[in-house]
């Protein structure tokens, strides 16, 4: 899923987290489904990685589900971590940064 963003604030003063404050919600707003695989779904974390040192005034954001990993917790519960990743590129297609939001499905947490 891709979107174009346009920001009028000073490029130098803008951080990726200002454009994308919640990477999980940002990716879901692009139309990706929120997977619900076990009993409870919670937010697991967020990453922001700025590759260029400043952000251009126009960006294209492309979101995808980049990873789904299952494991068992120390208490024996099944966990599934889904990574929603958005890449931000300049109008020339140069990668500017990435944001990742992690959704955790937890077994038996209700």
């Amino acid at each position, binding site marked *: 899923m891709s979107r174009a963003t346009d920001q009028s604030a000073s490029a130098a003063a803008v*951080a990726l*987290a200002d454009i994308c*404050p919640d990477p999980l919600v940002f990716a879901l707003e692009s139309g990706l489904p929120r997977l619900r695989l076990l009993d409870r779904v919670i937010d697991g*974390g967020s990453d*922001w990685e700025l590759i260029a040192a*400043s952000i*251009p005034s126009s960006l294209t954001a492309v979101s995808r589900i980049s990873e789904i990993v299952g494991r068992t917790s120390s208490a024996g519960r099944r966990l599934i971590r889904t990574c929603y990743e958005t890449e931000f590129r*300049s*109008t020339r297609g140069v990668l500017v940064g990435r944001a990742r939001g992690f959704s955790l499905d937890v077994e038996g947490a*209700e």
Partner: protein
Amino acid sequence: MMPDIKTVDVGFRFPDHGPIAVQLEDMVRWAAASGDYTAFHFDQDEAEARGFPAPVVHGPWKAAVLRSLVESWLGAVNIPEFSVRYLAPDFVGDAMVFGGEVAAIEASRHGRRIVRCDLWATRSDGVKTVTATCVATTDDGAEAATDLPLQRVMDSVRLGEPAGTFVYRIDGNDVDRFVDAIGGQRRTGPEADIAPATFYAALDPVERRDLDLDGFVQNLPFPKIGGGNAFNEVEYQRPLRKGDVITVTTRYTEVYEKEGSTGTLLFRVRENELRDADGELVATTRCGHVLAFDMAIARGVTS
């Protein structure tokens, strides 16, 4: 006096921020800012229906507070990397404390100071609910947006450290085929088992695809306009012979950039140390590889 990013030391513990009680209004404002209108973040009944005693604080709101604190603690900084994990819920009305410390300090080739921080938040029962790591750099313009990230390239090739050790047995056929391939004449007589001097290059783990540390540079977000081997050198103690078992240790020794007529050139120089089965040094080879980038196009990032 509070140190800033240019003076702070490893282990410095930032002053705690808090305790602060998160208000419902904070969550409503955050919902509007982030687009996360999940009701249990601001609706008491919805939170209770989900088994929580009170509305649950948005995780990214906590991340935003920590990021803001890094900026207030360290002064003018860039934050190219910020990673946060939400370990347990915090609740509206509960008192939270945010803290952090300096975990490591590095210097980039361009003179930037790189400060790695560990961050956290705790709730009133003492449970750590958030952990985060952050990379902050001086915001002095020393390394422009379109500079090649030389420090990260150095890290990617483990500059100065052994990058890999490989063992090769030189069979007679290997030498003969090599001589045929370069249009040479196979040796006869007492020197029949001696490989030509150019055969040292055949024992380069990178060229043989046994060692590949190219992933980072090949994915740099700059347009590549060329590249290839820049030079090969060999200094040998004795010739290679058929039947030798040679241990090759590869080490990257230099990473640097130059401005060329076609663009910015990134050089990586690696050194192979060749030792025989007795551990005796046979030869040392040096190989330079160059990649050319068009930084004028890359500067479109900031246009």
